[in-house]
């Protein structure tokens, strides 16, 4: 099961846990309805959409209100520290949370007691605190944008705000930034770098790049990175390997963006609405690719299948 941890911008929203379903333009957790504008609800909506198509159980939300003072986040950190060791979650995605170093350490100590170790995905504020604590390598996947990648690459910056000027947010230097992030152990096992071009990378460098379809308008749009993280989380939880899930998610998010025909003023729900169609498209393509591969093998009369290296 996939657990998604995050916040909504409200002072009063109480700690809410439960299965996430999409109802119209909102997500529903138990009796609570939350509008999908951006942030964690956008991530949840995208993950719920993917899980539904894949026939997986819906993701579970661990959501609380926080407007940046950190009160809600502290409460959530505390709850998770006690609750997680007893949870059935295989995949955990952490999102908008106030970065608080000592709470992150307590939470990690609690996660370490879970067997088997769940797949850990971090984005946004929680990725910041993972890096601040110097514990990035405990995670399986980070999903930074270029600016956040520059932050991961800057071994001295405690927050993206302080990323030093010479470490440019330059699309052309992605591979350099990735190498630098790994050099100082400030990256997860895999990095999914979101931007005009999406990259998948590991310690071995860039593994994959997807830049099509391209929609100029998406860069300015809030929440497109959140949906990508949501999609990849749900795919990984369904049992697809991280590498493959990442490549699929990049394509699905781009396709959904393309189907939505966006302007810089579009909102993220326009994209979420097209995720099912994009996912179906990508699955279809994958099926035909697999079929073609098999046919090739048989037509060559090769009795031994080459193992993929």
């Amino acid at each position: 099961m996939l657990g998604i941890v995050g916040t909504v911008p409200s002072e009063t929203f109480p700690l809410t846990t439960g299965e996430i379903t999409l109802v119209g333009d909102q997500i529903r957790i138990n009796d609570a309805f939350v509008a999908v504008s951006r942030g964690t609800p956008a991530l949840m909506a995208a993950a719920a959409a993917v899980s539904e198509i894949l026939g997986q159980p819906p993701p579970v939300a661990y959501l609380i209100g926080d407007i940046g003072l950190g009160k809600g986040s502290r409460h959530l950190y505390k709850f998770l520290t006690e609750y997680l060791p007893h949870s059935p979650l295989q995949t955990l995605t952490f999102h908008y949370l106030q970065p608080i170093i000592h709470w992150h350490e307590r939470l990690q100590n609690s996660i370490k007691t879970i067997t088997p170790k769940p797949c850990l995905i971090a984005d946004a504020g929680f990725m910041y605190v993972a890096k601040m604590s110097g514990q990035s390598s405990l995670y399986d996947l980070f999903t930074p944008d270029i600016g956040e990648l520059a932050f991961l690459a800057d071994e001295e910056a405690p927050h993206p705000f302080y990323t030093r000027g010479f470490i440019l947010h330059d699309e052309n230097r992605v591979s350099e930034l990735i190498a630098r992030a790994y050099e100082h152990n400030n990256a997860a096992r895999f990095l999914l770098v979101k931007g005009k071009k999406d990259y998948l990378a590991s310690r071995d460098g860039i593994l994959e790049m997807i830049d099509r379809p391209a929609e100029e308008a998406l860069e300015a749009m809030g929440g497109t990175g959140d949906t990508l993280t949501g999609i990849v989380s749900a795919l990984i939880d369904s049992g697809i390997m991280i590498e493959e899930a990442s490549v699929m998610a990049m394509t699905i998010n781009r396709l959904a963006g393309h189907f939505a025909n966006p302007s810089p003023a579009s909102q993220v729900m326009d994209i979420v609405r097209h995720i099912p169609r994009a996912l179906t498209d990508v699955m279809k393509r994958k099926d035909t690719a697999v079929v073609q591969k098999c046919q090739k093998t048989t037509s060559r009369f090769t009795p031994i299948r080459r193992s993929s290296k």
Partner: protein
Amino acid sequence: MSKTVDARGLSCPQPVLMTLDEIKVGEARKIEVLVDTDASKENVSRAAESQGWRVIDTAEKGGEYRVTLKKD
């Protein structure tokens, strides 16, 4: 499996020939080509794309390029 082709200091069409040779060997799914002129960078990218490979990264350092090619 990843291979590296060092075509620095070589003029056209050598970088392209070396890249295509590596593609023809057919073992690598990812090839990194090192070149040191913009023309070579473009020619290698163009040739690889005509063979159904994709350029997933072009990194520059000190006047040299590392073109990363990938086959699906």
